[in-house]
């Protein structure tokens, strides 16, 4: 079923922000109630911009049910201007697979844009399937670099402006870099911000919060004001989202290498990291991981275990997800007075 | 040399002596110190009726105010006892046991048996009980028969300051879960109490008054009402033997039966409601084990089968009185 009227998708991950970082760092708790409120704020403006239908991930408990409840019992005047909310027909496994499936379905529906609410992890999963469908990012998890921190109402507004054609998609979107990897010739996952090689043997509780296990970092962009592993590089040699290259950084044992950087690698955590090497990397330049045993972490989460028998290769690509620049959307809207109605004299 | 102190102070003294003697003794309960987490006075209350006042000043961190969540802190006392401590935890009013009875009935009481004799749970639960304060239905109950019904629990009901101190020290040193019941009306009662530490064994009734004509078994505050009745009956030539069991689990049936074999007549004065009361318990055992000795039917003087009323006029009718006891004694004759 392909939607012909303006429609958008919202993926609000109810599971983000419950990981072990809550315990080992001062990471914040982002309540599902707030996520529901964010969705409702967005729905409020989407309807007014003529978006007819919104597709959502049916998380059964939590966000979706709160939204349903609000739609049924909200004030009548508000309710009438809200778009139709359709929950995708798909089984819920309470895992990353849900976000992935939802993205595929929304893409197939032909939504104009997908709003993603979650952390780096959720965005990474969505980005792996979103193809050319533009993403509007909203940060709700811990330790995030990729998604924006922004008032949801404005994100909803931007989505509505794009979906209703009031702003030109081409002018306000761009494609992102990604770091890809391959194990024994098989293409595996990608990272939106950083791919880390760690000597931790097991995926375990996933999060990476100790610098002592880091060996190597491959970075698509490293902004100096970002938190997380990319800050190790950013504070030496920043690379921006718009730059056509990335970085490779080799970690040295503490005190060795040619410099030590104090980096905010996790919420409330400043760790000294010694650097043996840092260099720019071009797209498609392939690197073989020299560490014999460990795990690959994608955007701060261990995802792949490897040992001596595995050949792991990493490279930068320019074919990542398409994201919307909300500032540009709103600037265009202002410039073209899209939301302004002149009064006749 | 003993001096006269109140029932309340006797309890306070028992706690203080045991805390001084044994570091594993801790005192915990609602407002047992009072004032925790406030900007005002610490040790503000020392318990709702002031029984634990002053302990915080002496023993600091071992006197612990608890939040109003009986299941959790009674259970914590039970758990701490199973792990080598000797907690004295207070249930502010025995009526509140409804909210935490599982921790006493299914946990504390049953550990030793269920775990094949390998658990030791030396927890003391202090609680106040009984009527006479116009505290109404939810703050006036007499529930020792409910607790006595549970195998694994011990239940102690002192009637004098002397007994209170000795029995409480015994409770704390005892290696089983014990419920120590303090009648609110008795808190102000004064009596002779030695300054030193002493214990009174469980399961040893006190023959408070000797007599050959009738046996009156009375519990807690009722002991004093029974004594009043006995005094009055003596003027009519009826000499009553008044027995205070002091502990209702274990209960010293032997002393009661020995007395009934002497007098042939039994009146039991129990402030609780009549169904499944201590009165019916004692009646049943005596009827079974000393039937031949009885010269007349056993009489039970209890409160009626109603909740405790609020109005003073009604509560005075509700509670057993010396007049009712006298009438009961005469009815055995």
């Amino acid at each position: 079923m392909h939607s012909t009227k303006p429609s958008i998708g919202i993926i609000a991950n109810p599971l983000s922000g419950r990981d072990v970082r809550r315990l080992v760092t001062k990471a914040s708790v982002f309540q599902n109630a707030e996520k529901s409120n964010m969705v409702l704020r967005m729905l409020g403006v989407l309807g007014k911009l003529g978006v007819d239908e919104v597709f959502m991930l049916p998380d059964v408990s939590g966000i979706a049910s709160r939204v349903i409840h609000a739609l049924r019992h909200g004030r009548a005047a508000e309710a009438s201007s809200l778009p139709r909310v359709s929950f995708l027909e798909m089984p819920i496994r309470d895992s990353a697979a849900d976000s992935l499936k939802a993205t595929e379905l929304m893409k197939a529906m032909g939504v104009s844009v997908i709003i993603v609410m979650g952390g780096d992890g959720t965005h990474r999963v969505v980005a792996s399937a979103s193809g050319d469908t533009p993403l509007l990012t909203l940060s709700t998890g811990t330790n995030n670099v990729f998604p924006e921190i922004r008032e949801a109402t404005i994100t909803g507004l931007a989505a509505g402006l794009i979906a209703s054609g009031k702003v030109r998609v081409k002018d306000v979107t761009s494609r992102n870099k990604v770091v890809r990897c391959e194990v024994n010739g098989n293409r595996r996952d990608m990272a939106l911000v950083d791919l880390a090689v760690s000597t931790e043997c097991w995926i375990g509780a996933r999060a990476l919060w100790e610098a002592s296990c880091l060996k190597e970092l491959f970075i698509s962009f490293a902004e100096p004001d970002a938190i997380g592993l990319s800050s190790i590089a950013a504070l030496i040699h920043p690379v921006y989202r718009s730059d056509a290259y990335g970085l490779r950084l080799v970690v040295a044992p503490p005190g060795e290498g040619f410099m030590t950087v104090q980096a905010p690698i996790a919420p409330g955590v400043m760790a000294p990291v010694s650097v043996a090497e840092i260099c720019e990397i071009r797209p498609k330049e392939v690197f073989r991981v020299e560490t014999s045993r460990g795990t690959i972490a994608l955007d701060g989460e261990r995802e792949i275990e490897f040992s001596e028998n595995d050949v792991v290769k990493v490279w930068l690509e320019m074919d990542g997800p398409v994201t919307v620049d909300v500032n540009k959307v709103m600037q265009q809207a202002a410039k073209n007075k899209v939301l302004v109605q002149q009064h006749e004299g | 040399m003993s001096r006269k102190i109140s029932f309340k102070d006797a309890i306070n003294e028992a706690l203080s002596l045991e805390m001084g003697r044994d570091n594993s003794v801790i005192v915990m309960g609602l407002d047992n110190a009072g004032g925790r987490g406030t900007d005002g006075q610490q040790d503000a209350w020392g318990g709702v009726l002031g029984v634990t006042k002053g302990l915080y000043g002496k023993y600091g961190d071992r006197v612990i105010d608890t939040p109003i969540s009986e299941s959790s802190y009674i259970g914590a006392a039970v758990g701490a006892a199973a792990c080598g401590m000797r907690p004295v935890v207070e249930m502010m009013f025995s009526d509140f046991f409804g909210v935490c009875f599982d921790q006493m009935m299914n946990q504390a009481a049953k550990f030793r048996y269920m775990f094949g004799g390998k658990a030791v749970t030396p927890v003391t639960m202090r609680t106040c009980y009984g009527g006479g304060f116009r505290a109404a239905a939810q703050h006036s109950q007499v529930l020792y028969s409910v607790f006595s019904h549970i195998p694994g629990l011990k239940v102690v009901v002192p009637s004098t300051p002397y007994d209170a101190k000795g029995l409480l020290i015994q409770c704390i040193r005892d290696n089983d879960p014990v419920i120590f019941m303090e009648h609110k009306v008795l808190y102000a009662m004064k009596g002779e109490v030695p300054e030193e530490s002493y214990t009174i064994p469980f399961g040893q009734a006190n023959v408070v008054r000797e007599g050959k004509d009738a046996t009156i078994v009375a519990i807690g505050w009722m002991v004093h009402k029974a004594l009043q009745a006995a005094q009055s009956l003596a003027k009519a030539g009826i000499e009553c033997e008044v027995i205070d069991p002091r502990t209702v689990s274990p209960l010293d049936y032997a002393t009661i039966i020995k007395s009934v074999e002497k007098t042939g007549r039994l009146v039991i004065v129990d402030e609780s409601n009549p169904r499944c009361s201590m009165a019916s318990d004692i009646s049943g055992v005596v009827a079974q084990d000393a039937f031949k000795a009885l010269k007349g039917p056993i009489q039970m003087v209890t409160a009626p089968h109603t909740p405790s009323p609020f109005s003073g006029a009604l509560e005075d009718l509700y509670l057993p009185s010396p007049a009712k006891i006298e009438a009961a004694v005469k009815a055995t004759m």
Partner: protein
Amino acid sequence: MAELKKEDLLKAYRTMKEIRDFEERVHKEFATGKIPGFVHLYAGEEAVATGVCMHLTDEDRITSTHRGHGHCIAKGVDIIGMMAEIYGKKTGSCCGKGGSMHIADLEKGMLGANGIVGAGGPLGCGAALAAKFKGKGGVAVVFFGDGASNQGTILESMNLANIWNLPVIFLAENNGYAESTGVKYNVPTPNIADRAAGFNMPGVTVDGNDFFAVYEAANEAIKRAREGGGPTLLECKTNRFYGHFEGDAMTYKAPGEVKRQREECDCLKIFAAKATASGLVTAAELEAIDKEVAALIDEAVEKALAAPTPTEADLLTDVYVSY
């Protein structure tokens, strides 16, 4: 995280296999009618008890649930004694007087399986309070399920533990079912861990079918408690292969659900695959453990069947220390 050496990996596998084989065997024997009363099997959840208890010593305490065999074995309770107890024999861990729902070994810090849902919360707080007074860094772990997470005792315990900064870990074993009703019905949030914020405590959710995830997260929570950092709510999402009790036809589970879980979510299979892929242990080493464990369980059943039953004298003993 604490590095897992080869002997740790083998130990973890052995413990999980002991639990699995024990439960599968009890399932089989129960069907013959020789085991009295009720049993509640832990098969499917092994990684949780194992991953947590590997960080604990005999000085640390755990409280448990009606589904307690796994906690017992992971905490080091003797398997021969456990089986005899389940059969109600005099040689049982509790001399035949407790049964499956009340197996305990206080010397191993196992404060008993418990037939009252949620009762372990307050008891665990008490154990933690005692540890705090003792001052040697001991901790208590309260195991409880998604069903128990709604019981007043658990919520009160979380409050108490946080205001008193007790060294306790609230270990939520979310197997998706409270008897016959689902967690999505009974709990208003998608994770039990979501409740932690209300008590100002960290709440973490991990995949309970992955020993390594449980081990790592438990390490952090236990370390935090030992260092005086206070309580943690650690939720492990897992699955139970059997019903609430033996005899439960599990009609509330979707068709094919258990089959899929045994294929895709079996913590033993997941562990074996990862451990052998890492090259740190071999399949042959794991198979050797399989054989030893099978023999141990056989021995336990043989001894239990042959053991004497308690006598009339045993009926009246150990109600009190003294009466």
